[in-house]
């Protein structure tokens, strides 16, 4: 398959009759009214932005289009015909493909098998002809930015690469509509750029793209029209002309919002809490050294696959280093498991909230309690849990982080993505570790909550915590951090602070290694 075959040759203009019209859609889950009244229409060849706060109903609307949920009320017309999207197969048959917010890949399979998941495959004598498929898929995979060999297992791949696989799958299907639910949340700048180019190409050739993101700059940059959801209703629809970030923010939040809260930086203490010396785990982390001070927010930037997550896991005892040493508050620190690290005073907010952060079937209260169990028990001899303490802890945290939930007993798997993220962070607020590592803390978090989380991180630092923040979003780190390390190919290539700390400096440093060939 070549590029031209993916993209249907028809060239539509935004003035053509709508491809999909959804009217007055409502949907409740149990007692929760996820969608109250949503209407949206998608024109052939347009890039349609969809924005809204966490829990506004974006993903639910998308799941309805995908045939995964069925609306309680309202109608969907496709090409002017009222339709009932019965299931995912029906959606595919209608020419829609989806990149859902929850990653869809099968861990035991290869990259190519995952790309072809659910896609009709050519066969010879009933046997799948994989070499033919590989020939067709390879150029698309390259264009999307998948560097791993197609026959590699997806097990060792990063989140970002798994996202690219999902994107690649949508391209391989010849679809009239591609829906992307926060595709860039896990991508770093360079992958994002590649994706934008692809989206523009798709649009040019008449494919409709429905694009959900909390990164408003992307939305403004990319979209022809933007729909805004708030509390389960579609409240606004803008076209690109004359749309400003300010307008968009107001519409999302329902009121004005001062986004420019530059965190106040306290006088940084010189007391080193965590000292990392020459830590390696080849080939992903190569001899990394740095010191983390009390009250400091240290950022780690870089491209996807630079080894930041792996570094965090090494510090946290989740993986074992091949070399190097660490000290924590002056004492040798060599955790043999995360539980040892937690006892020593560390905390981690992992990158993958659903897979690594939460027990999805359990309540918000349960999940918030997990790192704080010692403080929730009463009784000297039998460590019985005190429901009162649990409830108190949960109420406080829910309030502090403005977690949108029906109550503390709601299963956390039913919260929207951003609110799930808040629960993982909330777990550590109460425990107050000496060192808190946050891996992509604002992934999928809406613009309002993002500000709150940033504020919170600063507060934690001010109260004496040492905070390590990993982020692939170059915009995030300069505002938030006192100091930023940039990693590339497993090594720290640059330390930025003070005036030198800027978005551009981080991006530039990220490519350092690739330019020089050999890391420092």
């Amino acid at each position: 398959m070549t590029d031209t075959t993916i993209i249907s040759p028809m060239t539509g203009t935004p003035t053509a009759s709508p491809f999909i019209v959804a009217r007055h859609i409502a949907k409740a889950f149990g007692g929760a009214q996820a969608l109250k009244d949503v209407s949206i229409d998608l024109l052939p060849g347009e890039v349609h932005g969809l924005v809204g706060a966490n829990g506004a109903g974006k993903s639910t609307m998308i799941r309805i289009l995908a045939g995964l949920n069925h609306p309680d009320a309202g109608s969907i017309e496709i090409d002017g015909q009222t339709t009932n999207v019965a299931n995912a197969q029906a959606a595919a048959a209608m020419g829609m493909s989806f990149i859902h917010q929850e990653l869809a890949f099968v861990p035991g399979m290869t990259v190519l098998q995952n790309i072809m998941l659910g896609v009709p495959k050519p066969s010879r004598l009933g046997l799948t002809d994989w070499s033919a498929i590989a020939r067709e898929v390879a150029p698309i995979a390259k264009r999307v930015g998948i560097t791993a060999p197609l026959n590699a297992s997806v097990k060792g791949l990063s989140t970002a690469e798994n996202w690219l696989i999902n994107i690649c799958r949508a391209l391989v299907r010849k679809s009239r509509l591609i829906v992307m639910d926060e595709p860039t949340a896990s991508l770093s700048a360079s992958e994002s750029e590649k994706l934008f180019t692809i989206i523009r190409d798709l649009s040019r050739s008449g494919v409709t793209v429905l694009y959900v993101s909390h990164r408003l700059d992307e939305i403004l940059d990319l979209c022809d029209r933007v729909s805004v959801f708030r509390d389960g209703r579609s409240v606004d629809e803008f076209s690109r002309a004359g749309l400003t970030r300010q307008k968009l923010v107001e519409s999302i939040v329902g009121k004005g919002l001062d986004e420019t809260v530059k965190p106040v930086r306290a006088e940084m203490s010189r007391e080193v809490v965590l000292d990392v010396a020459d830590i390696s785990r080849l080939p992903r982390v190569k001899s990394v050294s740095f010191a983390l001070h009390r009250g400091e927010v240290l950022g780690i930037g870089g491209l996807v696959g630079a080894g930041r997550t792996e570094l965090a896991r090494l510090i946290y005892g989740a993986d074992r280093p091949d070399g190097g040493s660490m000290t924590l508050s002056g004492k040798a620190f060599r955790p043999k498991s995360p539980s040892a690290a937690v006892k020593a005073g560390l905390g981690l907010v992992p990158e993958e909230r659903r897979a690594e952060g939460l027990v999805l079937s359990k309540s918000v209260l349960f999940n918030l309690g997990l790192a704080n169990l010692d403080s929730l028990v009463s009784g000297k001899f039998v460590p019985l849990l005190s429901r009162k303490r649990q409830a108190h802890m949960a109420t406080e945290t829910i309030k502090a982080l403005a977690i949108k939930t029906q109550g503390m007993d709601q299963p956390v798997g039913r919260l929207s993505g951003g609110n799930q993220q808040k629960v993982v962070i909330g777990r550590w607020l109460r425990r107050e570790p000496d060192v808190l590592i946050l891996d992509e803390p604002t992934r999928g978090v809406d613009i309002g909550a993002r500000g709150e989380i940033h504020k919170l991180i600063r507060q934690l630092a001010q109260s004496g915590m040492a905070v390590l923040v990993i982020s692939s979003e170059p915009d995030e780190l300069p505002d938030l951090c006192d100091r930023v390390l940039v990693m590339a190919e497993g090594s720290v290539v640059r330390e930025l602070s003070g005036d030198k700390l800027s978005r551009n400096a981080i991006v530039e440093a990220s490519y350092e290694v690739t330019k020089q060939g050999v890391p420092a």
Partner: protein
Amino acid sequence: MSDISVSGRRLTPQMKAGLGIFARYATILGLFAMILVFSLLSPKAFPTLGNFTNVLNQASLAMIIAGGLTLAVIVGELDLSIGFAASLHGIIVTGLIVHDKLPIPVAVVIVVALGALIGLVNGFIVTKIKVNSVIATLGVGTILTGFAFAYSSGVPIVAGVPEAFLQLSLGRWLFGIPNNIVVMVVVLGALWTLVERTSLGQEIQAVGGNAAAARLAGIDVDRIKILGFVVSGMCAALTGILLASRLGSGTASAADSYLLTAFAAVFLGSATLRDGEFHVLGTFVGALIIAFGFNGLNIFGAPTFSQYVFQGAILIVAVGLSSLGRSLAES
């Protein structure tokens, strides 16, 4: 999500809420409905205090072993060794009492400790050597059968079993409540408290819910899994001891068949009150359904073949009602 909901009418939110509640209580309703039907069919023999006490007494052993198994499955593992282990424990406890002339309490304590040890071995093989729990516990169970045979040469230990040991399970407590029931209530009560009301229980549930997340939240996952196996092993030991006391002998493979009964109870229980999660109270209800089903069908005098058919159907219907209600409620 069910295909059933696609067809035709949509359910109102009220109907869905109702279905959700129905789903939680469907297995319990099923139990009561079953008791009601049997009471109508055999009004003289079935619904008597005596019969209910008997059923509970009889079911106590299965409940204890199933209660232990519940902990193993909560932490996300299967323990297939319990039946074989209980058989071995029955032989060893009688052996210790009859051949080694140990006082009964000492023998009981030793055997329960042995149960814990077997659990420890299972847990070690699963967590440290990382053998899938199906293979690990099947392997250990097979080895235990070999030990049972080696210890007893296959001959039941009968002669000289003291009456006091038989009284362990045949005796009665205050108000004439059989000892077995007392032990069962104590064991299940302790397990329930452990899982639902202690911080250790939260860790146990977290490990079962998402081991990776539990690990990163600072929980020692291996330790908790081993604990699950140890509890399961100790409960198997208790059941083995009580069975030997009830039979008056230590007999190889006497308890093997508890394996399937315990699994049925545990999985039946997972449809009770909660959404497909394993829990101690559910296991209790599951074991009750199985015990009353067997007893009621027998008293009614159903022919053997129809007893099997009904028993199978009871399992499916009890869980099916609840699952169907739930999937409609969430559609």
